[in-house]
């Protein structure tokens, strides 16, 4: 084993591979920092570049780029209120609220350090416990997924601010948008109105670019919106006071690490869902839930750690069983196969140095994130200093190129445009955006897992509670639903007694 670790280390720390890692880090930070361009896209864009590389540098490139992009998504989120990746969307309002208070350095510092901590925690779990945890992941069938998704939808109740009715409207509309296109269960095209560009459905990335970035650009031109006027010209020390904050939020960070890794391990649920669930759980158990959405450092710490932990966790089922934990590892598995490294239980026997190389790449990438992320944040100062009238047109061009690059069609630019207008009016009407995006992420999962479960059980609902994990998840979900009622009932009782 030691031999393999050493040989992996000598390959990983060769000048060539280090150069690849450094290049991918810069690339990942750049892609992540552009509003709407996701960690998944960073990985997909690397496929042609890594085509002729050896397995270790190829995977190291993808690991590094995706981890960096996941953090960098927080930069525009904090500075411009435009989340760079869907995983940042859960806590955009908090990150931006801190910036408005002149504390951009605090919010970015928390995001950077918790991202690195989450990534390293996930990587350590990956190195130590991959095989048993992967076996656990294989126990998930459509019944378990259904409850997990419902749990995810339920959490949106906690992230809603303001009117719950408007939150429900937002969630329903998001879920509805996810049904556009060919229904994968029945094969029937839905709500396409005969438009060929809608038959594939609307992808998440152009929608995100629309409701966040384009809507913000429209708002800027419509109002010269002071909401975006950056009240802070100088970015103070990113690491100043972070030690104290991290220690204070240690519970939230630990929770984010564990939940993020676990959700990452479950195939099909990735960093986006991890960030949302972790944020909601943190809020649910917080002593200061009223701060959430208005600059909660606790929420930032929990979700910031969770999304990077999920990126690492997703590799567990991918390496052990060849079953991708998320969209990023789906691409990485393809690349590994391409290199003749077949994921599976024997990967530890057949390609040990590759596996150790991947583990170490995770550690290197997440450690490298701290200095490089610091540089990226310093570069972010340009955003704070630049005039928005110059920045906005440039962001618009990036939005269009980014939408186009998802599937290489201009129709996606049209989608970004449409959802930009929708996002603008939603904001004007006081409808929150976050439940809408959550609905789009979870919609297909909820529907497909419900329908295939019904097909498997022959229409019986009992099957949803038949399996131990499914029953456990069902219990948690239903308890959360009933908790407001229980609380109400208990309060009544107390009042009566008084």
């Amino acid at each position: 084993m030691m031999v393999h670790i050493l040989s992996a280390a000598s390959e990983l720390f060769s000048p060539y591979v280090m150069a690849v890692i450094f290049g991918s880090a810069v690339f990942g930070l750049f892609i992540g920092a552009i509003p709407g361009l996701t960690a998944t896209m960073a990985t997909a864009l690397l496929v042609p570049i890594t085509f002729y590389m050896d397995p270790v540098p190829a995977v190291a490139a993808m690991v590094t780029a995706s981890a960096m992009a996941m953090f960098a998504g927080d930069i525009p989120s904090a500075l411009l209120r435009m989340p760079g990746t869907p995983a940042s969307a859960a806590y955009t309002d908090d990150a931006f609220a801190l910036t408005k208070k002149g504390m951009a350095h605090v919010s970015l510092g928390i995001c950077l350090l918790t991202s690195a901590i989450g990534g390293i925690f996930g990587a350590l779990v990956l190195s130590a416990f991959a095989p048993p945890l992967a076996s656990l992941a294989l126990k998930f069938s459509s019944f378990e997924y259904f409850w997990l998704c419902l749990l995810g939808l339920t959490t949106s109740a906690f992230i809603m601010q303001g009117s719950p009715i408007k939150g429900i409207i937002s969630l329903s509309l998001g879920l509805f948008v996810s049904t556009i296109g060919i229904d994968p269960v029945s094969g029937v095209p839905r709500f396409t109105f005969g438009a060929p560009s809608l038959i594939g459905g609307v992808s998440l990335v152009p929608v995100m670019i629309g409701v966040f970035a384009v809507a913000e650009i429209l708002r800027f031109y419509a109002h010269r919106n002071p909401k975006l006027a950056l009240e802070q010209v100088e970015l103070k020390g990113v690491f100043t006071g972070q030690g104290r904050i991290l220690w204070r939020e240690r519970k939230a960070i630990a929770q984010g690490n564990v939940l993020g890794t676990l959700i990452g391990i479950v195939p099909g649920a990735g960093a986006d869902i991890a960030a949302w669930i972790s944020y909601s759980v943190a809020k649910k158990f917080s002593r200061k839930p009223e701060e959430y959405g208005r600059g909660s450092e606790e929420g930032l710490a929990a979700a910031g750690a969770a999304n990077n932990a999920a990126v690492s966790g997703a590799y567990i089922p991918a390496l052990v069983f060849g079953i991708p934990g998320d969209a990023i590892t789906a691409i990485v598995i393809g690349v590994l196969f391409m290199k003749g490294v077949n994921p599976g239980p024997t990967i530890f026997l057949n390609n040990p140095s590759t596996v150790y190389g991947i583990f170490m790449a995770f550690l290197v990438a997440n450690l490298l994130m701290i200095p490089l992320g610091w540089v990226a944040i310093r570069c972010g100062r340009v955003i704070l200093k630049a005039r928005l009238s110059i920045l906005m047109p440039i962001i618009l061009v990036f939005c269009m190129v980014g939408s186009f690059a998802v599937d290489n069609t201009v129709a996606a630019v049209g989608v970004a445009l449409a959802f930009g207008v929708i996002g603008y009016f939603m904001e004007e009407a006081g409808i929150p955006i976050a439940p809408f995006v959550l609905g789009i992420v979870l919609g297909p999962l909820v529907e497909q897992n419900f329908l295939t479960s019904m097909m498997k059980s022959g229409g019986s609902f009992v099957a949803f509670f038949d399996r131990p994990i499914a029953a456990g998840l069902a219990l948690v979900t239903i308890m959360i639903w009933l908790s407001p009622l229980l609380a109400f009932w208990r309060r009544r009782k107390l009042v009566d007694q008084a």
Partner: protein
Amino acid sequence: MTDRTRTFSRYAAGFLMAGSLLSASAAMAEWPERPVTLVVVAGAGGGSDYTMRLLGAELEAALGKPFTIVNQAQASGIVGYTTYTSAAADGYTLGQLSPIAQFKLLGQANFTPDNFTAIAQFNADPSAIHVAKDSEITDMKALVEILKADPGKLKISCGGSCNASWDIPFVSMLLDQGVDVTKLNLIPGPGSAAALQELAAGGVDVVLCSIPETTALAEAGIVRSVAVMSEERIAIDDSIPTVKEQLGKAYVGGTWRGIGGPANMDPALVTKIEGAIKQAVESEKFKTGMEARGFGVAWLDHAAFTAFLDSHFEETTKVINALKGQ
């Protein structure tokens, strides 16, 4: 350098003629004289992407012009097929041609063989039947008997969306064996990885997908392959018997990949592209690249591929109508 000068002078001339009077025949004689776009109807990093990139790299090396890979995976590839079938028939926009007959039958798109020029097929991967390790189904005879007695008894995952490359040949086989296919319990899913996960979790009884996709789980002792739907045992794992060995009759099918173009391409141009693909497919690098990941190399030239496309539409129509109960 001459290349560039020529391009430049042509541009100057073209500019005078509104930049569009490049005659088709001149373009053909020198194909390719500018970058060629290859549309892959699947996302980056998957099997289709890999085989097409491999082929593209060989074509690029042989012909000295870039072959740009464009991934358009939306709507099971309908978007990608639409892109290249509606492009100019000048040989500069080509794409992956894989099973397409189901789209029209399911009302998703209007593709017929007439929309395509089937230039050449370079790969075929047989469908295979997989069960959980401890399943009572040990061979095809037993499987067919169970389904004859009660077609709805087994939960059969299509390894992706149903009415597609993995389940069509399987249903076609059952139809021929006298199973009432309208009552089959076919379960769709997002892809073969998710289907295998369901199998491991005990959610389904049978998964249909290709052999290389299951190697990891087979090694882990979780999944067992019952039979493969090819004429002969396949190289990647020759311990898996064919359906023919078990049922005494050959049932063959699965997915396949070829290069297609828009309809009405000039025959001389088609011959030229076909020749280039043949050369690339026969290259050592392509062969080893395909072998490394367990992809079968299967060559069909323009004529054979065109005829094959028609029979693909026939079989798919027959099976989908049978599933509808018609």
